[in-house]
């Protein structure tokens, strides 16, 4: 029977879920280690600052997207730069997304490999996740939105458990002296923290799909709410981990959040961290599938084949090889920093260039 397909629209609640899970996913289990390495006991301040930078940039992006309510960044650059030159920003964005997805995927796969399937070849795990991502992307943005909403409910149900170790084992002296590392160190730490918020760039693609059903104000509200909630949560996790372990001990852990949850012991459920890994698998998959979908949609729009169902299959190939680039988690961490530094500069410059030109050429907004 022919399917009666609704429009490809996502609601503001779905936007919140997509951003929330995407922002949470990146560095969720390791963020304490990444930031304390640079900012020591003040890592939580750096995390908050990183979130704040992302918050500011997100609002700038929203302001810019307001001028083109029915277009994605790729379509905007097509309009501003022309048919051929307009593809370049799209390709840069695509490369960024491919790297970013591969890195997120590697973090997920390495966690599964280390904790659940140590003897299984890593390729099998990568391929199994990629196949699920391809399946989801085939069905369009509407299904992505619904899926993320479902997962958010599951994640939120398990989240209160992660607050418990702090309330039981906290030792605030481990956080002292607050600000003792100095402003420069804190600001240095804010950079890797900011990199963990990269998913906010997906608004460059998502905006027109939400705008069909909601006002700009509602989108701003949902996006800001998601980034604020995630900033608070991530800051809490870093704060809590330092308060429980201390910044030096955290450096010994590959996944500090797991060690932090491991402190809990319930009757019958002795290994709480495994239960949490099971829940986090859903969250981490959702985070990676968002960037995978963005890469898929960007590729489709760059080559003008939007709606083609098998683009995910093509996108999965480079992502697979990029995922295999990292040999271990330490390497992936260096890659993460490199990618964060290079791509964020290039991408931000590209976005600034495209929107700057649109202002100069008086495209978009009232003139659109």
């Amino acid at each position, binding site marked *: *029977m022919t*399917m*009666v*397909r*609704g429009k490809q629209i996502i*609601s503001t*609640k*779905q936007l919140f879920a997509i951003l929330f899970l995407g922002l949470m996913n990146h560095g969720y289990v390791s963020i304490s280690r990444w930031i304390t390495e640079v900012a020591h006991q003040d890592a939580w301040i750096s995390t908050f600052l990183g979130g704040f930078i992302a918050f500011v940039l997100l609002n700038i992006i929203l302001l810019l997207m307001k001028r083109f309510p029915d277009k994605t960044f790729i379509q905007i650059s097509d309009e501003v730069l022309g048919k051929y030159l307009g593809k370049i920003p799209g390709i840069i964005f695509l490369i960024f997304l491919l790297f970013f997805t591969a890195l997120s995927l590697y973090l997920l796969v390495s966690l*599964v490999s280390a904790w*659940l*399937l140590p003897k*299984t070849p890593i390729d099998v*795990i990568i391929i*199994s*996740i990629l196949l*699920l991502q391809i*399946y*989801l992307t085939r*069905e369009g943005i509407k*299904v992505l*939105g*619904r*899926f993320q*909403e*479902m*997962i958010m*409910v599951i994640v939120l149900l398990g989240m209160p458990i992660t607050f418990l170790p702090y309330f039981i084992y906290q030792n605030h002296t481990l956080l002292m002296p607050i600000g003792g590392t100095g402003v420069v160190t804190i600001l240095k730490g804010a950079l890797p923290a900011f990199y963990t918020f990269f998913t906010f760039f997906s608004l460059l693609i998502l905006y027109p799909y939400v705008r069909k059903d909601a006002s700009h104000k509602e989108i701003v509200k949902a996006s800001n709410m998601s980034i604020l909630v995630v900033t608070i949560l991530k800051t809490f996790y870093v704060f809590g981990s330092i308060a429980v372990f201390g910044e030096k001990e955290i450096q010994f852990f590959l996944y500090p959040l797991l060690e932090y949850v491991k402190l809990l012991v319930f009757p*019958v*459920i*002795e*290994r709480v961290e*495994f239960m949490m*890994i*099971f829940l986090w*698998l*859903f969250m981490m*998959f959702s985070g990676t599938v968002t960037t995978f979908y963005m890469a898929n949609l960007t590729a489709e729009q760059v080559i003008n084949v939007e709606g083609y169902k098998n683009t995910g299959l093509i996108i999965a190939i480079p992502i697979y090889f990029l995922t295999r680039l990292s040999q271990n988690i330490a390497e992936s961490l260096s890659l993460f920093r490199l990618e964060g530094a290079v791509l964020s500069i290039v991408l931000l410059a590209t976005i600034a260039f495209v929107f700057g030109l649109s202002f100069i050429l008086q495209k978009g907004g009232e003139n659109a």
Partner: protein
Amino acid sequence: MFKNFLKRAKARFQPDKGLIADTYVVEGESSLTHDFRDNICRLQIIFKDCSDIVFREFEIQMDKQVSAVLIYLDGMVDRVTLHNHVMRSLMGISKKDYPQELSPLHRLNRLKNIDIMVGEIKEEQDMYTLVNNILSGEIIFMLDDCDHALILNGRGWQARAINEPDTETVVRGPKEGFVETLRSNTTLIRRKIKDPNLKLKVVQGGKKTNTDIAIMYVQGICPEDLIEEVEKRLKTINLDGVFESGYIEEFIEDNPYSPFPQVQITERPDKVAGNLLEGKIAIIVDGTPVVSIVPATLAQFYQSPEDYYERTIFGTAVRIIRLLSFITSVTATSLYVALVSFHQHLIPGEIVLSVAETRVGVPFPTLLEAVFMEIVLELVREASIRLPGSIGQTIGIVGALVIGQSAVEAKLASPILVIIVAISAISSYVIPHFSTSYSLRFMRFMMIGAAGTFGAYGIAIVWIGLLIHLCTLESFGQPYLAGVAPFRWTDLKDTIFRVPLWMMGTRPTVPDMKDIDRMLGAKGDREDDNGEG
């Protein structure tokens, strides 16, 4: 080859619909003539070798002696109506009632309007329609020298009494269920919703069976585009026979390859009535007690009419139990397989020893052991369903006690696994909708396979795949997970929870209807109309 192609092409464009029994009776093209004998002869050719078709010829004393015939299908006509109302009124006519000479058509009209004492009479000229009406149990009356016939409603046949449906029993609530007769079923619904806005449209399905398929909906609540969509999809059914609602389901479902049903079925009139008031459409097929309701959402399959008859707190509790049973049914066995095969360190110290002890001597890996037990369970289940009640119960006991216990003693399975398989089997039957338990059983095998291969990770990826699949599903363009994804606070009141009825001020948001207000009444409310008038 070219000849064959031409033959196929010709057959493709041949208007086969409407041809009856190789005669030239085509829908809309063959009419009765003034030749009474010729009309009877044509019908006799059509019904050649149909000994249950009765041609009762007789004379009526009107302005002159006129030949007439009654044609009906024996067994499908109510004999009381035929004898006491039709025959008696026709044969009781005397010449003094017809003092003036009349034309044949005037005679027929007078009989229709004055003499024949039957509730529903239609005049018809098309031969194809007449044939179909005979087969549907109507009485056809033809008069000499007249090119029109009368269709007298005399339907009546042996039907099953209205009983409580076996598959949807309730402790509290109406004990009536649908039967195999379309009219009885529509009446059962009408009795629940006494509103002129309850509309009923009938279409025919099956080229040979000409089965009546009724569409019922409440105008003003049900969205117009949904009604159009249902009608459009029903017209695509190109089968020779429709015997059960399952025949049409596969044609009208959005995704027939999914293990999850996208059409809700029920044998309970109260359930249909409740759904009609929520803007849904009921599709009733003649000859089956199973009524289909569209569009369907997953949450509906976990609801029972009893949820609304019992106190709200218990209604909600039962729904949460059903939700948990859905998870248990799909995951319990696979979780055991994953824990024993991959993550033994997650089993608490005291339990791990007893699990290890029970597995001593079992030669199979846990995966095979679990699959073996599940297959045995499926065999017992299938056997007990197909057998008569008492034997079915015996098989159940044999399966549960003898095979279960023997398998443990023979060291083919561990006792803990037997318990877990039993729990997951019971969980799958907590769900009120029987077809959904098929989906769960199907999913369970997938889950066990994944758990035996990838442990807990396998369970997670199958669940993720399952959730993605559920998110892709739609029923008549409406999201299958409506209420949860897309998430709507207002729909939660009657999905996972069952809030008090006085708090259900609005209807569910799926399907997308105009008249959302359940309590104040709006369009089509007769009291409001009276008030305004």
